[in-house]
């Protein structure tokens, strides 16, 4: 059986044109999907039962027992932390926010460690953004700043930006220019018309120099800015100003390098500057397929996009205090629930040590680095393959994830709802 137009639950591109062949409730073929998505669709290994640590050993337990234990851990905790959320659908995230409110927890997502500076900058100066469809149909200049779409979002270039024919573009091959800015000559740089090699930490300087040039104050720019020659910057600035519609995509090279949200703010202001002369947009290259969705869900439920603390009974948002890394650095949480992400593989060592020290529960289909830090792991249906729901693409477009396989595993949403119910029962029991 073939299923058409399946959205791929891997990266923020959320390619919704994947064609899947199914035989005997198993995926046998994947078309139109890149290596990364293909690996996810065809992955075999997964956790079959909930597991729990008893006397230092992993034991298989029933879902009832695992959920009881989770509810006990969370309701006993004074300052529980609910983290992850980017690999699951909006419906489950809603339950997660309810749970956080119920137990006065701090809820944060992977945004906190990737594009949180982007959000801070957007809160300061706004977001001149657009959907990827606009970029595809109109952009004649695409700038990738501090990201490598070939490795992280393989189909971004062929589907939305560089190669796809636009409605208002005659000849994508010749009319579209690509500029790549990075600290090293990444793979994406090889197809770029212009590659700017910035010294690490020099993005702010280069952005400021470009702003000056766009403003017509080229003479204040020194001969070399963060390792980039002035002539090249001038060439790039001219390209930008000549473009009819430009699109900037930035990645962690901008957000997580020196300068953090000030870099992004500067980039947004460069785009605003360019918007006086031509049309320009800027968008973040979001990583997980639904990391944007969590920001949306939390914003319409709590008013803030990430790092919300419900311990005061109200939604309290103060990045730097309520964001996950800072919290773990201060060793505040005394229980942790990880949903659909893998902090064990990405967090700094000191924070991981704290996660390992406190009772931690993970809800994830597969064994991963975080499993080693957990007391309990509850396997669930794989979102986007075995369960449906809503996810938001990197440009904020909601896309309905499809269920293509039948499964006995409960979904994230079901597990979370059962935890909430169990906690309420416990509370009622007193």
């Amino acid at each position, binding site marked *: 059986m073939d299923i058409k137009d399946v959205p791929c639950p891997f990266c923020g591109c959320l390619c919704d044109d994947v064609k899947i062949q199914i035989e005997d409730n198993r995926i046998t073929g994947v078309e139109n999907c890149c290596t990364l998505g293909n690996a996810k669709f065809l992955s075999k290994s997964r956790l079959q039962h909930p597991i729990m640590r008893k006397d230092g050993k992993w034991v298989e337990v029933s879902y009832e027992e695992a959920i009881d234990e989770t509810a006990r851990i969370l309701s006993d905790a004074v300052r529980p932390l609910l983290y992850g959320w980017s690999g699951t659908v909006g419906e489950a995230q809603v339950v997660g926010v309810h749970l956080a409110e119920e137990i006065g927890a701090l809820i944060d997502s992977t945004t906190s460690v990737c594009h949180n500076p982007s959000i801070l900058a957007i809160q300061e100066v706004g977001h001149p953004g657009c959907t990827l469809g606009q970029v595809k149909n109109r952009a004649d200049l695409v700038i990738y700043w501090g990201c490598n779409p070939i490795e992280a979002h393989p189909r971004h270039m062929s589907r939305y930006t560089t190669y796809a024919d636009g409605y208002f573009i005659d000849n994508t091959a010749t009319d579209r220019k690509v500029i790549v800015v990075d600290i090293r000559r990444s793979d994406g740089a*090889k197809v770029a018309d212009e590659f700017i090699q910035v010294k690490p930490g020099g993005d702010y300087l280069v952005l400021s120099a470009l702003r000056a040039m766009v403003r017509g104050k080229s003479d204040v720019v020194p001969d070399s800015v963060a390792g980039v*020659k002035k*002539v*090249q910057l001038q060439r790039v600035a001219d390209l930008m100003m000549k473009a009819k519609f430009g699109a900037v995509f930035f990645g962690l090279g901008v957000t997580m390098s020196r300068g953090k949200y000030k870099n992004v703010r500067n980039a947004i202001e460069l785009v605003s500057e360019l918007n006086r002369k031509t049309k320009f947009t800027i968008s973040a290259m979001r990583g997980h397929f639904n990391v944007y969705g969590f920001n949306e869900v939390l914003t319409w439920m709590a008013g803030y996009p990430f790092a919300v603390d419900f311990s005061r009974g109200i939604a309290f948002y103060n990045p730097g205090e309520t964001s996950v890394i800072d919290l773990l650095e201060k060793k505040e949480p005394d229980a942790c629930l990880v949903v659909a992400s893998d902090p064990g593989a990405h967090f700094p060592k000191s924070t991981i040590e704290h996660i390992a020290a406190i009772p931690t529960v993970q809800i994830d289909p597969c064994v991963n680095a975080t499993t080693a830090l957990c007391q309990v792991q509850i396997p669930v249906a794989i979102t986007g393959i075995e369960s449906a729901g809503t996810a938001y693409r990197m440009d904020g477009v909601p896309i309905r994830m499809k269920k293509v396989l039948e499964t006995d595993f409960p979904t994230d949403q079901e597990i979370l709802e059962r935890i909430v119910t169990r906690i309420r029962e416990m509370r009622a029991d007193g």
Partner: protein
Amino acid sequence: MSMLQYLKNTVRSRSIHVAYVNVGSCNGCDIEILACLSPRYDIEQYGIYVHNNPREADVLLITGAFSSQWEDKLKPLWDKIPHPKVAVAIGNCPISGCVFNRPETLVDPPVSKHIPIAAEIPGCPPRPTEIISTILSLAPIIFKDYEETKK
């Protein structure tokens, strides 16, 4: 425009000293520059002298696709040329790297990354006639009213 300026413009366009530098060419362009010296083309009748001494040159002809050896040498050489000066890229190599502009290459084109290029003569190599006519058409424009435009 003062009389003196007029005189300067005239003299500058009729007396051009040229130095050429090979920054990694196949020497096809070099010998085409050399061929310009031959009595057939006779560039000296136009007041163009090939000196190959940067300190007395007005025009620097650049051939070649910029090999790594020249990274620390071309800029000082360019700085030695007294003002007013221009650099002219001869052939495809300084413009685009020609056939050497491949992923495996050791050269680093274009030359305009390293010094400002005023004019480009495409061709692999350009004919001597093309070189001469470009320099001749360039000469009156590039040095015209230098004193006024430099400010």
